[in-house]
Structures are given as C-alpha cells and as structure tokens.
C-alpha cells in the first residue's frame, strides 16, 4: 500500500491527527486489565501484515512531519544528539542496519546501491539522493548516527557493551518521555534507570540486563512501554519541561478526549556487528483518548488499567493530578463486559465505533 504522508505539527497549533488506518494499527500496550512492570521481551521477527511489528523499522503516515519536528528540536538544542568518541563505529553500524532494512522493507520509498564502500542512498519521501563512502565521516554532512536518525522515526540510543553492563554512550533523543540524553549519556543500565520506582526492587533490571547482554547478531528483540502526554507533543523533554509542563493543567472534561494522549513506545534491540554495541530504538506512537475509544475493547481495558494503577507509577508517569478527570471520561466507555487476553483490537467481533 502507498502511505499518505501527512503535513502536521507536534507543537504550537498541534495539527497532528491519526487516520483510521493509524488508529487500527496503534500498539495498544495492555494485554490484560491491569499493569505492572515485567521483562516483556519477545523476538522482533516480523508480525501480522500491516502491523507496526511487520517491518524492522516501521514507517507510517507521520514520517515526514516527525522528521521535520526532529530537525526543529535539534536546531534549538543540538545536545539532543551526542556520540562519545569511541561510538562512531557503532554509528556506522546503525546507518548500515537502517539503510539495508528500509531499502529491503520499503523498496518503493528507499533505495541503497553499494559498490564496495561507495554507497548511494535514496530517500524518496525526504527527497534525499546522496552518494558517500561508507566508514568515511568526511563524506557525510553529519556523523553517521545523526545522519541516518534524522531520517528515521523514533529515538535511538546506542549502548556500548562492556564489564557485563550496557553503557549509554550515544543517542538521538528528541521524542523522549521526559529524560535527558545530555545528563544520562555515559551512565550504565542501572544508573539511567535509577529514577524508575519499584522496578529495581522487583529485580526487573537485573533480568532485563542479562537478556539484553545476550542478544546476538541476526536475532533482535522488542517490547512495549507506555506513558501519558497532554497534546500530541513529541518533545516532552526535561530540557523544555518549564515550557510544556503547564500544558498538563489545560485539560478539562470537554477537551480531554481530544487532548489526552496515550503515548506508547515500541522498543527494539539490535546487536550491531562491527562494534558489538547494542542499539535501542524507541519508537513513539500517539493516540488520543477519542482515537482509542473507537475500539470497544480498548475503551474498557484502559479504564481498568488507569483506575487500578499504583499511585507511584501514576506519579512517575506524570499524570497523577489528571487521573480523576481521566477516569471520569474513561468510565463512560467501560460497560463492565469481559475483555479478551492480548493487545489486539478484536474488531471482527466488535467493530469500531464512529
């Protein structure tokens, strides 16, 4: 199918909207009526046709607009993209991985022509046609990681693997759920996760680290994470928190359906061959409450999850103050009927609402 790329904004006038197609494939993250942390990893080896899991790096209708938003964030704050000196090789690994994956998975949108180390990359949606020498920094306008991630949806963190730990030594982070690359770069797995409540005592990170250290070439993995955001704002960074934090208070019962967004991260993990590093793409999907309520199962389930979520998690995810208003809205869509296991929308048995 041909993707209709939208022209929309993720700031100021917020013209972002999901098409019906985008809502139906939205990665609703809850497989049961409650939520607690788990090491919910699975193999990243395709998925149902048309789903966000099918391709290695999913491209959707928001692609061009997201890349424009990214370049604006970077113009304003270049420190959102940093790479410690020893990570340049890993940056080339990532460039190679993304170029090969996208040219194979979306041949009508991306092309990669290679002749030894002489490469030509064509990105039709972004109107890029660029010849360069692989591994030669001087032939690219930016470092390799920055170059390719300016053309790929989602944040990227590259982790150096040493001393039986993972170290956040490079990243492109412009769509994050409130953490700072500039502050966290150089930290190890336990350190950058230090602010997450409860999870350390549960042993989540020890188990997750062991799993991640053993991810091998050719065998990527994935999991989902989630939070809440008011307005389809991608740049919910701590750096700009003093500007966007106040938006949380603009929610009211009339606008909550339109302005309250569930923000889901598809996190994938790929071993990078030449550097032995691990890349951690964090792909952000946004859906408003109105969007989500068109799927009856999601309407019921989201109410129950948010209602029963422990206070510490709701506080850490930043929506504790708005929770009562959210529940007022969501409870209208919970008729108490049972929900099926799993995240899929069940639209065959219960069609979408208008």
């Amino acid at each position, binding site marked *: 199918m041909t993707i209709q790329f939208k022209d929309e904004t993720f700031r100021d006038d917020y013209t972002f909207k999901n098409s019906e197609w985008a809502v139906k494939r939205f990665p609703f993250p809850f497989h049961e009526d409650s939520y607690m942390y788990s090491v919910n990893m699975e193999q990243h080896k395709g998925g149902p046709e048309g789903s966000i899991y099918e391709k290695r790096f999913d491209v959707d209708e928001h692609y061009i607009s997201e890349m424009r938003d990214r370049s604006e964030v970077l113009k304003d704050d270049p420190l959102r993209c940093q790479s*410690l*000196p*020893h*990570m340049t*090789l890993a940056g080339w690994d990532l460039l190679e991985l993304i170029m090969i994956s996208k040219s194979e998975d979306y041949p009508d949108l991306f092309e990669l022509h290679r002749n030894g180390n002489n490469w030509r990359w064509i990105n039709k949606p972004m109107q890029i046609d660029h010849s360069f020498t692989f*591994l030669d920094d001087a032939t690219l306008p930016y470092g390799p990681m920055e170059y390719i991630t300016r053309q790929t949806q989602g944040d990227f963190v590259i982790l*150096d*693997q*040493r*001393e039986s730990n993972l170290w956040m030594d490079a990243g492109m982070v412009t769509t994050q759920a409130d953490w700072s690359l500039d502050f966290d770069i150089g930290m190890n797995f336990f350190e950058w996760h230090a602010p997450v409540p409860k999870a350390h005592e549960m042993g989540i990170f020890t188990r997750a680290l*062991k799993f991640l250290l*053993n991810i*091998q*070439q*050719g*065998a990527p993995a994935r999991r989902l994470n989630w939070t809440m955001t008011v307005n389809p704002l991608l740049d919910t960074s701590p750096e700009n928190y003093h500007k966007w934090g106040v938006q949380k208070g603009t929610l009211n019962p009339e606008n909550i359906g339109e302005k309250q967004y569930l923000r889901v991260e598809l996190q994938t993990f790929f071993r990078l*061959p*030449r*550097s*032995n590093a691990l890349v951690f793409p964090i792909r952000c999907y946004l859906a408003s409450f109105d969007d989500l309520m068109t799927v009856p199962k999601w309407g019921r389930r989201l109410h129950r999850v948010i209602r029963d979520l422990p206070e510490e998690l709701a506080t850490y995810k930043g929506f504790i103050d708005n929770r009562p208003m959210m529940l007022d809205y969501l409870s209208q869509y919970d008729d108490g009927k049972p929900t099926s296991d799993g995240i899929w929308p069940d639209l065959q048995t219960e069609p979408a609402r208008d």
Partner: protein
Amino acid sequence: MSGAEKINAKVSNIIKLNDLVTRFEFERTDGQLFPTFSGGAHTVIELKDGDLTRRNPYSLMSDPMDQDGYSISVRRDDEGRGGSLFLHNNIKIGDDVVLSHPVNLFSLDLRAKKHLMIAGGIGITPFLAQIKQLDRSHGNWELHYSVRNQSLGTYVNDLMAMHPNDVNIYYDDEKNFIDIVNLLDGQPLGTHLYICGPKGMIDWVVNEASKLGWPNETIHYEEFLAPKPGKPFQVKLSASNKVVNVGENESLLEAIEREGVDAPYLCRGGACGQCETSVIEADGEFIHRDHWLEDDDKSSGKKIMPCVSRFDGKTLVLDR
C-alpha cells in the same frame, strides 16, 4: 532457539600451516555475504560426525570487513574429545558445515588509548581479526606473541612482515619469554590489556597486572575452554521427564541435546552464562569448570553450567 542464528556454508579451502595448526576457509552456500563482525568474535561450527553433532567454537581470524568468506585456524588437540581431530582428519574441501552468526565475548574496549595484546600459541587467532580492525581506524596496538619454536610459529612471518614495529615474537625453545613485569610497568594510563592463550599464561599475566595496580576493567582475556572429558554420570531432566547418561567424552550440554531437549547455549565454553541451569536436587559433588558462576553459587549446589561442568554422585536432577 538456542545459540546464535545459523548460516549454511561449505569449506572453500584448507591450508596446513604447520604440524599442529590448519586454517579452514568457508563460503556461504546461498551466495550471499557473510555478516560482518567485531574483532575477537567467534563462530560455533556444527559438524555431523555420524550420529553425533559436534559444536565447537573458534575465533574468526579473517578481516571483519571481508564478507566474502570466514576463516578459522584450528590447533590439533590429540588429547581432547575429538573436535579438532575431526576437523583435521575428516573435513575436506567442499564439505557442508553450519556456522553460527558471530558472537563476541572478547571485544576491544574502543575507549582505550592503547591496546596491549599478549598471545600464546593458538591464542593468536582473535588478535589477527582485531589487528585488521584497528589498522583500519589507525588504532594504537602492540602485540607480544609467545610460540613454542619457529616451525610452530603460526602466522609469525606474516605478522613480522606487515607490522615490524608493533609485533614482538618470543620463542620458547630459545628460552625467550615475555618479561611481563617490565612490559606492563610504565604503560601509559588508558592502556587496555588483552590476553589469549593457555590457562597458565592467562593466570600469570592477570596476576602480575593486578599486582602492579592495573584495574580489573582494563584487563581482558579469553580462554579457549573446551569441555574436558570426565567420569560418566547420570542426570534426571525434570521438566522433560528424561533420564540421561552423560558419557565420558560428551559434555552435560551435549548429552542433553543428544536426548532432543532444547537447552539454551551460546559460547559453549563456560564464559557467557546463557546455559545456566537450576539444580532441583543433588546428592554428590559438583565439578564446576566454568568462569560464569560466582563462588557462592558454585558452593550452593543450586546452579550448574552444563556446557563445561560435570557431576560425580548418586543423584542430580535439573530443571530442563
């Protein structure tokens, strides 16, 4: 799925380097490029020996940028369980093999201001790939390579010809040994030390470096730990409901695999932790030969690494 992803290949060349060491070169059977890798990585080669499936890890010595072929160099071990002997005696050019995707448990620390490499015998192999990788990025490295004698000096001539200023060779038979204390003394801050060779050499160098105040994080080593043969023993696999007799020349992991039970593994050499197995019941002595478990895990009798460790006693029940 156990182990790293697999690649179908065939033997494209066999070169006998000297009395003990032979190089094997491989090409893919599907005509595609091999995955690239980082210097220090190894591949696990799967060979069919009659009913037996042998799985042996070998360092990739080829240039990581060369995706047309992989090469390994194998030292014939007459005392071992037959893996290297099988390769030397039975494998011919054109034979089919299965190679795993590269796995790296001995990678370079790219932050190092200098890479100081100490190799003993066949331990030279991972350094050959690392040197090629570092040369491409103009990295700062220095090699000290100890060999038995000139005729068993595998790749000595190539190394001396290409890098006369960075390679130092030591011949045992000329009583020429690495003066490790003097070598380590005075290395600039930010140097990382890499050792690959026999266990005795590794222990000695690690010990001397630690005594001289080198932090643990700057010392890296890889020991080619092949599972040693041992007294046969019986094990019950509780989850699969099977009783398995582990033979003298097979590892516990190999016996489990032989019984058709899919047990996780990666390095098959006691280093990576992937095959860690819980012990449900044990009446006897554990023979721990791995580098993975902590001392208290080993003495607890609650965990075992089946790729290299064994057991001697009446009962052993594992959660597999």
